[in-house]
């Protein structure tokens, strides 16, 4: 959390940078990768959670010049990390499901992970994730070096993501009462 890494989001007009952000160093093995060919990660954050599952958000910009395919993701704080997208179910509700084959990030484009949209899903949290903690996440691509991201944990009450019963529809085997409203701290001893 004390890492002093440049906030890639802030342009020259607003020449400041703030804490808690990550710049992922990246080079494509086997290609003619130069130093500028980096992946840029902006504002990575993970929703604080006392239950079994949570999600990571942020933006990953592919400045490498080649298309990228995310192969797998790992973190020390959860058993597994899945790549999820939001889709409409038969009754018109938005639910999340694992994306087939993983996220691709075409050259020059940005993968936007945001509440209510694409996200990295942490399943089987080992410990409670507390606001202000930092979580290390490693993203493996189908080729090249992995990307390491330091994400800030934040309390986040909204986003309208069906973490509750709906989540089971894509094969989760967790108790629905472990997520959803229980990260609302109003009456809480969560922290």
């Amino acid at each position, binding site marked *: 959390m004390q890492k002093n890494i440049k906030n890639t989001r802030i342009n020259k007009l607003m020449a400041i940078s703030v804490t808690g952000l990550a710049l992922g160093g990246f080079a494509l093995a086997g290609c003619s990768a130069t130093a500028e060919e980096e992946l840029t990660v902006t504002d990575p954050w993970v929703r604080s959670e006392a239950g079994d599952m949570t999600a990571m958000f942020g*933006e990953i910009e592919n400045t490498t010049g080649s298309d990228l395919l995310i192969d797998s993701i790992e973190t020390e704080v959860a058993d597994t990390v899945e790549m999820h997208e939001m889709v409409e179910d038969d009754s018109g509700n938005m639910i999340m499901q694992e994306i087939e084959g993983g996220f691709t*990030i075409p050259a020059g484009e*940005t993968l936007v992970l945001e509440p209510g949209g694409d996200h990295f899903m942490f399943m089987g949290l080992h410990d409670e994730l507390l606001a*202000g903690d930092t979580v290390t996440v490693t993203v493996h691509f189908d080729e090249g070096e992995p990307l390491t991201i330091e994400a800030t944990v934040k309390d986040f009450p909204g986003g309208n993501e069906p973490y509750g019963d709906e989540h089971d529809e894509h094969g989760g085997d967790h108790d629905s009462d472990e997520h959803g409203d229980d990260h609302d701290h109003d009456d809480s001893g969560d*922290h």
Partner: protein
Amino acid sequence: MAESGSPSRRQFLLGGAAAATAGVAIGIGADRAVLAAQSAAEAPHGETVEPFFGAHQAGIATDAQAYATLLAFDLREETDKAALRRMMSILTDDAARLTQGIPALADSEPELALHPARLTITFGFGPEFVTRAEGSAPAWLAPLPSFRIDALQEEYSHGDFFVQVASDDPTTAAHAVRMIVKDTRGFAAPRWQQRGFRHSHGTFKPGVTMRNLFGQVDGTGNTVPGTDDFDYVVWSNDGWLAGGTSLVLRRIRMDLDTWDHVGRSDRELSVGRRLDNGAPLTGEEEHDALDLSATDAGGRPVIPPYAHARRARSDDPRERIFRRGYNYDDPPEGGGDENSGQLFMSFQADVDAQFVPLQRRLEELDLLNLWTTPIGSSVFAIPPGCQEGGYVGETLLE
């Protein structure tokens, strides 16, 4: 995937610049370009930012913004030193972004963050915060001694953690308050919120002294930010508080109904200053010297013994404070039709050495006491500022 869904924050930030470039690219005429440059020079006030990082926190020496929301919280039982570190890291990040017009991390209303209008967010610690941080508190970090004139209400007093959110735009301020409240929630429960205002941005030229709701020019006899004197009066040199200061916040009700019965000349005598321009009764212009020894033809002091400005001035140069208050005008309570006053705020290096003696003098004698009643009182330690990569409170918490 990329750029789908809601616009990314990068788009917010780059949108203006991209549009400007496009204007040049399509080759607008020279006159129009000059006009565009002129209006760009007069960018809307919403884009004006106050720096966040620095030796001192912003929001103290900062020329006072039009609106302020003051918030106090009580720490939750389980909030220990490690939790305070996490809390202050998160809140520092929020403040560093929002004050520069950048949405907070996980900001649900990012559009509301884009026009800071000199937004500042200032943090303060009550005694319990310092205890939980296992730090040593300055002796003055405690409720003030009681004063005869006080009629204090708990709901406007004290607290473990304090935040001042101030901006020239009330919508911006409300959003920043919301973000701070959401990110404090896990660590502390709201205790009170008090809102104050001054003249709007643009009503006067910058540097004009505000008026309070008695109609008085209020803030003339004040040490001036940017001077050695200000540094001497305001900033502490003490341990983790070095570069910080103390805040005394007094919610002082002003009884506009009884004030209505006072004639203009008595109103001026009660302070020792004129109402039209704030000049001392011994001078012509606002900043003319207040001559406490001047007498009239009959040998009586021009500035009466009971006058507020006389009583508020001590012979001891250490007994001075920096006042940066706000008016309040809230909905009437309990069947009354009036609920106005002043969020009196003063910053000083040492509350006991500087503020308390002045308040004692005013308690003993001050004609303004007839129409004013302190109904809330709090004291907070305001830690120093931080540099990029650090956080407010690190001198206490690390």
